[in-house]
């Protein structure tokens, strides 16, 4: 059954799925508790024009161009959204929708001019078996950074997520955490883009937490439990997609979706 591990691309995929599944699942708990589930879907779309711009500027696709392009696109849209919303001009979701659709439209125009559309397709739908060593290294780095930030501010995050106003009155740097969370979401999205693609990437963040929300009694167990669930689902789906010869990205999401349905059916009585 484990013969497929003789191939290094399968080994890389297994490692990547475990690591990305953990950090993005854990970060997803913050996204859900902050009621940012829609935001992360929108951000995932905002990455693409950034990648297109990167390819156009640097004349070709490589992991750095993809990574920093995506980072640039999402940072611009994400941070501009936080800024516009904080300035009290528009509510957060309206600001986000204006900015990410505009950015995406610009990205579509750029796409027409690009060579190598096939490569870009793997950003849209993910290609975890196509990861190179450098991609894996970037995924490790991002996952480590996310996990570190979650652990470093652990009590601050909990106060901030539950009641931002009370947190601020206690001296928690709420504004800084707001920007930090947005920045981490972008970083996490870039790594899940490679695994499952832009269209499905929000699911890696949202479904593990949605699955556990009925079962846990503390934010801490929700955060780390979601990480473990995301990681486990990632590992298992690499095995399953090999055994049944299915596409890896959709397999991960379907497995998580199945976990969610099972958890909903057997949820504890309220």
């Amino acid at each position, binding site marked *: 059954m484990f013969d497929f591990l003789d191939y290094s691309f399968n080994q890389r995929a297994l490692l990547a799925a475990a690591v990305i599944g953990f950090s993005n699942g854990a970060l997803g708990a913050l996204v859900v508790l902050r009621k940012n589930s829609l935001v992360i879907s929108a951000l995932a779309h905002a990455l693409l024009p950034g990648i297109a711009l990167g390819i156009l500027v640097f004349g070709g696709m490589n992991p750095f161009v993809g990574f920093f392009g995506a980072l640039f696109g999402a940072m611009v849209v994400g941070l501009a959204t936080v800024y516009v919303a904080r300035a009290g001009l528009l509510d957060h979701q309206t600001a986000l929708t204006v900015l990410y659709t505009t950015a995406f439209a610009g990205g579509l125009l750029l796409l027409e001019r690009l060579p190598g559309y096939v490569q870009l397709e793997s950003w849209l739908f993910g290609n975890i078996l196509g990861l190179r060593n450098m991609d894996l290294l970037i995924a490790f780095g991002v996952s480590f950074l996310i996990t570190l930030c979650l652990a470093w501010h652990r009590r601050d995050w909990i106060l901030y*997520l539950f009641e931002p106003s009370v947190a*601020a009155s206690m001296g928690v740097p709420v504004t800084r955490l707001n920007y930090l969370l947005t920045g981490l979401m972008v970083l996490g999205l870039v790594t899940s883009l490679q695994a499952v693609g832009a269209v499905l990437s929000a699911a890696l963040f949202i479904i593990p937490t949605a699955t556990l929300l009925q079962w846990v009694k503390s934010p801490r167990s929700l955060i780390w439990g979601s990480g473990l669930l995301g990681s486990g689902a990632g590992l298992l789906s690499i095995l399953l997609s090999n055994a049944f010869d299915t596409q890896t990205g959709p397999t991960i999401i379907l497995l998580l979706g199945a976990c969610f349905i099972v958890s909903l059916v057997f949820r504890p009585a309220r």
Partner: protein
Amino acid sequence: MSRFPITRLGHSHSPEADHRLRVENLHVHYGAICALKDVSFEIGCGHCVGLIGQNGAGKSTLIKTIAGLNRKLTGSVTWRGEALAQVKAEVAYLPQIDEMDSFFPLTVGGLVEMGRYPHLGARGRWRALDDEVVAAALSALKMEEFRGRRLYQLSGGQLQRAQIARALAQEAHILLLDEPFAGLDEPSQRLLGDLLRELAENGRLLLVCHHDLKAVPELFDTVLMLNRQVVAFGPTSEVFTPDNLANTFSAREEDPHV
């Protein structure tokens, strides 16, 4: 009338001369709108102060500003001679309970433990002392049996008491409560009123936004009547008068006459 053993927390104290909250020349603007104009008052601990005024009179703004949530202000808020922003753990802000996300994955125990966070910082080690303070806060509010309950399993009055237990666990001297009686039934209101009075008698300072005029003399020993600026401030028996009420609830002019 029930008595809560609040003194068990050991951090209560008799009112002292230096325990004074001083608000001086406070102005708050939201864009072109003036929310608070030249608000000044001073009070020592050991009082339960009602903030009385109509909607938009600035009650919530005042409480949030004292809680340090409002950076667009001029004037000063000091506590024991220091800027209140420097001693954040001494102030507990209790928002309206309907602003609380009761489906957040949290138990009563977890909520009360949050009161220790300002003392521990983001990563500080949880100590045996913290366990003791949390247990004392829960027992002071007779909430021990609810410790493992999720927030959505509580009534409004119980939620309010859980919030107050968090403030006690924080060892806060000043409690800022935004409409704590809103949405509570009659017995819960009476229970909460007794509790607030007792907290004041034990040396804490409570500032309470309140819009229902009926129970004011029973609930508060002091009132601050607010109509964007201070209409009257002092012992309830002296300043809670029909004249002051009329001024507090009069339509606001551009520059209200006091």
